């Protein structure tokens, strides 16, 4: 081996070891356990496809949690991207305050994933929480239980997620700045309105960024855990039970570890499928030409 390839292998060694020890071996193990009846304590017993069969035919809570997770992602991701793009367009305008404004809108996404924000959120929307007290301040005492009601509890989590649109906003701002001003100048000469400038120039040139954001946010949407685990624990009546939280409960609270492993593989397959579908739509709406 040449000096160069020896060096290459040595420098890559941490990743090679890490890949095998912390990713490939655990993946292999979980694939095997997903075909087993296994509860951490006793030896795994091979049961074939039983876990997978039970997921789709004998477990209503699983199907409920799947539906809730889809609903959460389908509502929160588009809203988040909409706000990210709208605010990015507004804050593109250069004023003396722009830096400060951007920081303000972006701060929530820096700390939004923390436990601190989750417990704060729980107090904001409690029946004796801040929101209700603010509404009560307008007149009648108001004690609606946002978190206790099956129709509103999920929205508390959606609002928390949409609130963190800041990092997508920054990505949009970065690509908005790269659109050459000459395009807008030419459009102005041709008498194009602001609206048609947005539809014909800005939006098409942003579609690659939008696509990247859409894929990443959708994956993250499916994997949300902390907010749900701390704020609602899936309550009331499983109406906010996220897939990951149900998987955690099955694996570590009920010790259905083999079953949990099967859930993990179904999730991976779903994410792969959704990503693949999104890539399939790419050629219809994502601009891939040069400038």
């Amino acid at each position, binding site marked *: 081996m040449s000096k160069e390839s020896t060096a290459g292998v*040595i420098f890559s060694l941490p990743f090679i070891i*890490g890949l095998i020890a912390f990713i490939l071996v655990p993946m292999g193990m*979980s694939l095997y356990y997903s075909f087993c009846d296994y509860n951490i304590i006793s030896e795994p017993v091979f049961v074939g496809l039983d876990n997978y069969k039970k997921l789709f035919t004998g477990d209503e809570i699983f199907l409920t949690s799947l539906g809730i997770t889809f609903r959460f992602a389908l509502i929160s991701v588009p809203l988040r991207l909409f706000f990210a793009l709208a605010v990015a367009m507004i804050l593109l305008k250069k004023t003396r305050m722009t830096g400060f404004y951007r920081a303000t809108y972006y701060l929530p996404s820096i700390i939004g*994933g923390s436990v601190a924000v989750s417990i704060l959120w729980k107090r904001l929307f409690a029946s004796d929480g801040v929101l209700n007290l*603010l509404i009560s301040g307008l007149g009648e005492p108001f004690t609606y239980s946002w978190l206790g009601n099956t129709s509103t509890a999920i929205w508390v989590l959606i609002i928390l997620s949409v609130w963190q649109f800041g*990092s997508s906003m920054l990505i949009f701002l970065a690509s908005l700045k790269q659109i050459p001003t000459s395009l807008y100048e030419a459009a102005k000469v041709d008498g194009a309105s602001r609206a048609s400038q947005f539809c014909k120039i800005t939006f098409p040139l942003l579609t690659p960024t939008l696509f990247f954001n859409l894929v990443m946010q959708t994956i993250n949407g*499916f994997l949300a855990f902390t907010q749900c685990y701390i704020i609602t624990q899936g309550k009331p009546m499983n109406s906010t039970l996220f897939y990951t939280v149900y998987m955690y409960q099955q694996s570590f609270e009920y010790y259905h*570890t083999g079953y949990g492993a099967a859930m993990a593989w179904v999730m*991976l397959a779903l994410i792969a499928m959704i990503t693949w579908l999104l890539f399939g739509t790419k050629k219809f709406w994502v601009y891939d030409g040069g400038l």
Partner: protein
Amino acid sequence: MNKVRKTLPAAIYHIVVCFFGFVMIFPLVWMIMSSFKPTNTIFTTASQLIPETWELQNYVNGWKGFADISFGVFFGNSLFIATVATLGTVLSSSMVAFGFARCRFRGRGLLFVAMLLSMMLPAQVLMIPQYLWYQKLSWIGTYMPMIAPYFFAIQGFFIYLMVNFINGLPKELDEAAKIDGCSYAGIYAKIILPLTVPALITAGIFSFMWRWDDFLSALLYVNKSVMYPVSLALKLFCDPGSTSDFGAMFAMATLSIIPSVLIFIFLQRYLVEGISTSGLKG
């Protein structure tokens, strides 16, 4: 007249942006303000943002922690875990990135693809088998699961970030050093490492914030309360049966976001850089 026509839209713009900006940060401001109010008045005066009397009693009460374990211990734990894991991930990722970017060797393409795929792989898929695996290694109940893996460059995002950064450095630097008889280790340590400091800082602050906020691994692997990091300790305030001292809870929650806020204030340039060039999640 002309001046009015110009300043009026600008004023409306600023008022609207300020109003919505205030709505955005209102929850946080409310939490910080409430942490200085006497705990029994927090909800009776919820609509009043500024405390009538400022007091630090909540911080004193909160700092006492739970069952004779001061919150200082939890902060120390979080600081330890986040710092060591960050050092590990930054160093190992930077080494691997150098190998990927500057050395040609068999299997490099395959490893690069494996790295890209690992970026898409959700940690939750590995949660169960990793737990069993760490159980076999007798790591449960120690900090090992939250530290050791990071020394093996398992966060593909950071490798990717650094490979891109190193690719932007002129290759002539390496060539010149090679002619002068410098080894690959020398090129890495003397040329590449110092030049990639901005990328190392970007990766470092993201890693630190993620490790600091990490809740799921602490929930899985730490079982003695004296070893709890802040994220897990804060959750104790929410548990049913805990004496709901909301003042103390908001005080400690406020302290727990200080590291991220400090990073946000002083290292914002690197945060923005990381998010807008590599799509790192903020």
